[in-house]
């Protein structure tokens, strides 16, 4: 198992290297002179020459790539052109928001999608099954941003003045402030230190932070602001998970051991949940892992619709503003995260199905 994990990590090194290479090439090919982009159109030739030398842009391209690799291995992503702030700092602010949004969407998709799929499979060809599958097919065909806008219209405008009203934008209501847990508990961390950055990262997950500090007002507010974006972002994964669960369950329910379980007089509920579902779980876990990519891509659209300051929206803005230190860092973070999640899913097979021996 550990051996397998190590081998898989080693095998993903070429992929990560490839990701870095592709991002590097793409970022360098964005049209426009980096000096002019960073220092303004009026930068003189001498200034630009110095700038080019300082940033190593006069060196051969492969040397530049090596410098870039060296910086990344030290966790340095450079300075943002637009904000003149370290990219790492921006990533620490933005990534937790997206992770929070992605996780709530995925949790929603899983806890609704799996029971829907199981139920459909058990009541195959019933009205509920047909309705679920029509719903799931429609769900995968919906543009995320359209669903988001329609949900915002429904819950923020049509249901205004009802208890079902939900905020259409932002992460917290005006006047509600989330105080980081390290300040509440006075941990006395030095600004800029790694421990501070780590604490800052987790405190930017507002739900987590407000649970730690026990601030229920912020918690409630943070959750209500996350409902619509999570619904919008989670619908496609939900549909995919429901379809996968259904087909995987149908496959298992055909097996002889299910007939045996029924024949020996077990309750149907136990047959379904213990005998069938556990064996149907493997492809479901795989498909859930693959949704992480969908979630990151959907985050670009969802965050821009619900005005959430996350990685997706930032990345999109950075691309359009040619802020390539941010483009490079954020793309790498997302792609590496994607590779890592799929690795974790692969390793989780052992726990889902003890018969599997990873070697």
């Amino acid at each position: 198992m550990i051996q397998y994990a190590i081998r898989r990590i080693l095998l993903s090194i070429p992929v990560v290297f490839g990701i870095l290479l592709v991002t590097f090439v793409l970022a360098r090919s964005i049209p426009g002179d980096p000096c002019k982009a960073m220092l303004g159109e009026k930068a003189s030739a001498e200034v630009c020459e110095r700038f080019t030398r300082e940033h190593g842009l006069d060196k051969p391209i492969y040397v530049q790539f090596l410098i870039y690799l060296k910086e990344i291995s030290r966790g340095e992503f450079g300075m943002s052109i637009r904000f003149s702030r370290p990219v790492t700092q921006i990533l620490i602010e933005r990534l937790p928001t997206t992770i929070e949004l992605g996780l709530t969407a995925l949790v929603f998709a899983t806890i609704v999608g799996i029971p829907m799929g199981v139920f459909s499979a058990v009541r195959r060809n019933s009205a509920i099954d047909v309705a679920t599958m029509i719903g799931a097919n429609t769900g995968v065909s919906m543009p995320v941003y359209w669903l988001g806008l329609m949900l915002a219209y429904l819950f923020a405008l049509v249901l205004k003045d009802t208890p079902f009203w939900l905020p259409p934008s932002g992460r917290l209501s005006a006047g509600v402030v989330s105080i980081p847990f390290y300040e509440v508990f006075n941990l006395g961390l030095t600004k800029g230190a790694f421990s501070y950055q780590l604490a800052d990262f987790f405190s930017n997950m507002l739900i987590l932070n407000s649970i730690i500090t026990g601030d229920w007002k912020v918690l409630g507010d943070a959750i209500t602001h996350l409902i619509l974006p999570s619904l919008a972002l989670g619908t496609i994964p939900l549909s995919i998970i429901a379809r996968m669960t259904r087909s995987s369950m149908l496959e298992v329910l055909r097996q002889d051991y299910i007939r045996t379980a029924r024949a020996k007089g077990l309750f149907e509920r136990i047959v379904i949940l213990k005998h069938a579902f556990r064996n149907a779980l493997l492809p479901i876990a795989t498909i859930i892992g693959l949704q992480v990519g969908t979630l990151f891509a959907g985050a670009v659209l969802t965050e821009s619709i619900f005005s959430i300051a996350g990685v997706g929206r930032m990345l999109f803005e950075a691309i359009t503003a040619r802020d390539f230190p941010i483009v490079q860092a954020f793309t790498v973070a997302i792609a590496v995260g994607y590779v890592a999640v799929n690795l974790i899913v692969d390793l989780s097979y052992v726990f889902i199905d003890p018969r599997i021996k990873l070697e």
Partner: protein
Amino acid sequence: MTNMPAEKSLDMDQYMDGVVAGKVPEPNTTEKDYRSNSLARLTMRRIFRQRNAIVGGIMLGLLILVAIFAPLIAPYDPEEVLIGKEEVSKRDSPCIHLLGCPEDQPQHILGIDGNVRDVFSRVIYGTRVSLFIGFTTVGFAIIVGTLLGAVGGFLGGWVDNIIMRFMDVLLAFPSLLLAIAIVSVLGRGLQNALLAIAIVTIPVYARVVRASVLSVKEQEFVSASRALGGGQFHILFLRILPNAIPPLIVQGTLGIATAILEAAALSFLGLGAQPPTPEWGTMLGSERNQVFTAPHLVFFPGLAIMITVLSFNLLGDGLRDAIDPRLKQ
């Protein structure tokens, strides 16, 4: 000819049975049976048994008709600004005479957009743009993907390794993000958006083709073709690649759905089709801030995207179940 074809011998049995029973079988059953067992017919029959495929196929057929006859269906030119021509103003709600809209007002069944154009006509013409997007991107991706996958699978070794590792890298990016990055390098516009979407979907087809090539390249009929003196090119393109066509059709149909969805997303973000092109994503994107005041401007283009994508998804699912159930995931 010592071997009698299977159908013929079966017919002899039937004939003998008939003789024993004192009846002579119908003379032309042989031909009928033979025809009904051809691969194409069997496949067609399987496809027609798939409810999804039929519903998706009918929806798609209607959409193609709408695209072809758009000028006949749409009451206005999609880019025509109606200021001064009619008594309408910016972002008017839908006006349908049948539903009680006064007869003296011009009928606009999906309303008027922010530039005082008929939304219905724009949505109708949008079908052309979206179907064009779907077919061209996937067509391009299939051609390039097939070449890469076929060459990799056929030659094997380091060529295969390099190609497939590069495909792995492309697959490691969430496709929409990679497409956004590529468009930002190439520049905005529909053509570049199409190219970006095609590039990010190439790995899917390369993998499908490579898998089919690997599964048949050691089989006897390939060796036979080689023994008969067939060249590499002949063997790869005429003997091996036809085996990849069924999975490619399935993947391609599902791929068109994704391509349309992603192209619309790029246009929504302002990176794809530029106004005044009647593209659904662009229409939605330019009116997104008006969702609270004029929801019809967001609702209908989105609905059109959904219906089109749904038709390809249903058709693709049905085809997969009929042609290649192994692909089911």
